[in-house]
């Protein structure tokens, strides 16, 4: 399989703002050059204050998300409390490494708000966590999105600005990438609410 990470296509991006975070993804689900659907969900709300975005092989996106849902639900029941975003970020890393020699073909991004503070972490497919930057990308259009992010991003943006910037970055990136696109979804999380917006990209 030339490029198991490229088989289904798709891009994700996460960004930090001032006391808020944003996550965006495209909507394409393809099989190499064919497009199967244009409404595939790649960003998941794990908890009121935690978002998980996944790019890569779609079957693994679905399974890994289900695994994380199970983990957090069991945690809530056993520990009788919510999971902190930093804890969830570590859990994702352990869960990926557990499959070190038969990995999930996904590259996750975790975004959350912990006591108002934005948390953002990205991983390779075997659990190397990196939480150093203000924005992270993943998927086949990742590099194109990086370029747009570097141009548009500035630190401590408001939720409205953040939504605009992350949306533009995603759209620019997906327009260039043949395997990503067919629409975009932007999630902006603040202490008060989560807003979801659907964007139009080039319909190819």
């Amino acid at each position, binding site marked *: 399989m030339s490029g198991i990470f490229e088989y289904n296509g798709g891009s994700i991006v996460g960004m930090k703002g001032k006391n808020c975070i944003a996550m965006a993804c495209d909507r394409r689900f393809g099989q190499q050059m064919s497009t199967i659907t244009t409404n595939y969900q790649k960003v998941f709300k794990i908890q009121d204050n935690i978002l998980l975005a996944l790019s890569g092989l779609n079957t693994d996106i679905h399974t890994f998300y289900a695994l994380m849902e199970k983990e957090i639900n069991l945690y809530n029941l056993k*520990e009788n409390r919510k999971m902190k975003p930093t804890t969830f970020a570590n859990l994702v890393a352990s869960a990926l490494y557990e499959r070190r020699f038969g990995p999930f073909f996904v590259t996750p991004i975790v975004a959350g708000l912990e006591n108002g503070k934005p948390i953002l972490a990205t991983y390779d497919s075997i659990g190397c966590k990196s939480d150093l930057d203000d924005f992270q990308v993943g998927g086949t259009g990742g590099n194109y999105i990086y370029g747009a992010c570097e141009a548009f991003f500035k630190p401590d943006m408001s939720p409205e600005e953040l939504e605009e910037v992350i949306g533009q970055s995603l759209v620019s990136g997906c327009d260039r990438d043949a395997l990503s696109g067919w629409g975009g979804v932007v999630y902006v999380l603040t202490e008060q609410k989560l807003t979801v917006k659907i964007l139009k990209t080039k319909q190819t």
Partner: protein
Amino acid sequence: MTDFALTTFSSKGKLLQIEYALNAVAKGDTAIGIKAKNGVVLVVEKKQSSILIEESSVQKIALMTDNIAATYAGLGPDFRVLSQQARKLVKKYDLKYQEEIFVQTLSRELAEDVQIATQRGGIRPFGVSILIAGYDEEGPHLVQLDPSGAYYSWKATAIGKQAKNAKAFLEKRYNADMEIEDAINTALLTLKEGFEGQITPTNIEVGVIRDDHVFRILPPSQVKDYLEELE
């Protein structure tokens, strides 16, 4: 390896092995725990059977992690095994979540190991009651874990030989507004009440955790100061 459990129900619906395990606990050296509003203290008798024993080599309060420790009444070796299991549980949690484990969580997970010994084939129940003391994000905690696998959160309690008298003494002395220093004094007074012979800094062990989340086992010199204050 036998397939059947050694712990089986009596016709009256009791698990005699657990009752006998509790008897073993009741014969053990007294241990006292008090939870103050800003810390927890553990105090335990360390009576040696001979003056030839190297007192410093016996450690009855064991650290589970930086902010949780435990002591016991009953069979020392059983406590050693459970301490080791608890430490592994802490590390396993740490590897998975990279977060400080809550005292309640550790108690619950350790309790599962204790309960298994009352139901799985071929092994006897543990002959210890354990007092777990810790300070986590939720605050100070004191938990008692029995041979049956049942665990209880306490404000103040005692286990071992003098448990009954000590608890009666504590019921009068305890108040919810206690600060950790008062709790230490009260715990020492309670232990002194039923102590056979002279209480010294080397025949007891004292462990304290305050709101800095660091459990410390007091060196004999510090214990001596506290004992002198009692006079």
